[in-house]
């Protein structure tokens, strides 16, 4: 009986450790990726959780740690794009509209806080003016720094199409943040 329980318990512990490490390693990056696409913390939180649950349920596909990050980004962007398709459009929300418990009380100096807030607002304004495809392409290429080929694979379109999305996104983004960038 003990002999049989030993390996099972060890496997369960291993699985739990793997789960913890996997979540801790990738959560911030995946949350930010989704947040930049959907534009608000509440949806980003739900979709980040959904992404990790999907990924951990198919953990046999994530044995290779090097490919895990890439694969997870793909799951995340697809989850976010699916969400936007269902929801119709992204809903960009400023954090000061959120409930108080999410805000941090021990932020740096008030000036730094204001500057940081302004920069984030400018970024959100630039991203909000893009279509979902353009925004996703820009986030993956310019924020995640993925090669255009990988962005095309994420979005399930040709490299020429993704180049067009990236170019349009950069032109619009630059126009939208011009003059308001702190």
């Amino acid at each position, binding site marked *: 009986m003990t002999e049989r329980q030993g390996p099972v318990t060890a496997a369960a512990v291993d699985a739990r450790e793997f789960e913890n490490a996997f979540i801790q390693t990738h959560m911030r990056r995946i949350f930010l990726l989704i947040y930049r696409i959907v534009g608000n913390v509440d949806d980003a939180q739900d979709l980040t959780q959904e992404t990790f649950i999907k990924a951990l349920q198919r953990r046999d596909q994530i044995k290779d740690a090097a490919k895990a990050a890439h694969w997870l980004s793909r799951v995340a962007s697809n989850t976010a794009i699916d969400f936007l398709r269902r929801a119709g459009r992204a809903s960009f929300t400023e954090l000061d509209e959120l409930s108080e418990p999410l*805000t941090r009380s021990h932020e740096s100096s008030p000036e730094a806080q204001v500057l940081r807030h302004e920069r984030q607002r400018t970024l959100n304004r630039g991203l909000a003016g893009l279509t979902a495809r353009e925004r996703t392409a820009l986030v993956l290429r*310019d*924020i995640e720094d993925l090669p255009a080929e990988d962005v095309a694979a994420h979005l399930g379109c040709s490299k020429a199409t993704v*180049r067009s999305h990236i170019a349009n996104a950069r032109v619009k983004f630059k126009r939208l943040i011009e003059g308001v960038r702190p």
Partner: protein
Amino acid sequence: MKSNRHPSQTALALHAAGDLGFWRSLQLRAHLAGCDRCRATVEEYRASRQFAGTEGAELPAGLNWDRLAAEMTANIKLGVEAGQIVARRPASRPSLSWRAAFAMAGVTAIVTAGWFLQRPTNQRWSHQAHARIESRGVVAQASRAGLELTETAGGSLTLVTPRAENVMLTVNTEGTVANRYVDQATGQVTIQQLYVEQ
């Protein structure tokens, strides 16, 4: 060779991060070498890309990440566990091994054989129009019209089954006649039995 026509904004935007094809990039570089305005535009695209990259990697201002991360981690674990429970459910369905199946088949055979040997042999169901039994001057008969008890001395008693269909008559050698029928109006099944004491 310098071109007098300015490249499109999309070409400049792609060139800013090296996303333009080789030949197109070569042409554009030649143009940029002699065009301050386009060079400045490319720099602006690089700056806005850098801004997106830098700010995009920052958490939203004012977000309590530790708290949010803890909440998400707990929810993820809960979700994964719930998924595992759902996935395990079909596997936990008891399966019948061939040994158990063989044992069950044996028991069924014994029960069937026992029932066959113990079945009542003195009773017959019939679709015939008439069933009759006589004992010590008393005749009990069953017909589609009903049950009738007649004494050879003259008296009789009749139990009528009006508007009946699917009438089954039974004669039992132990002195019973019975009919079973379905009432046409109500669909009710009625069984009537008449005993003759010997």
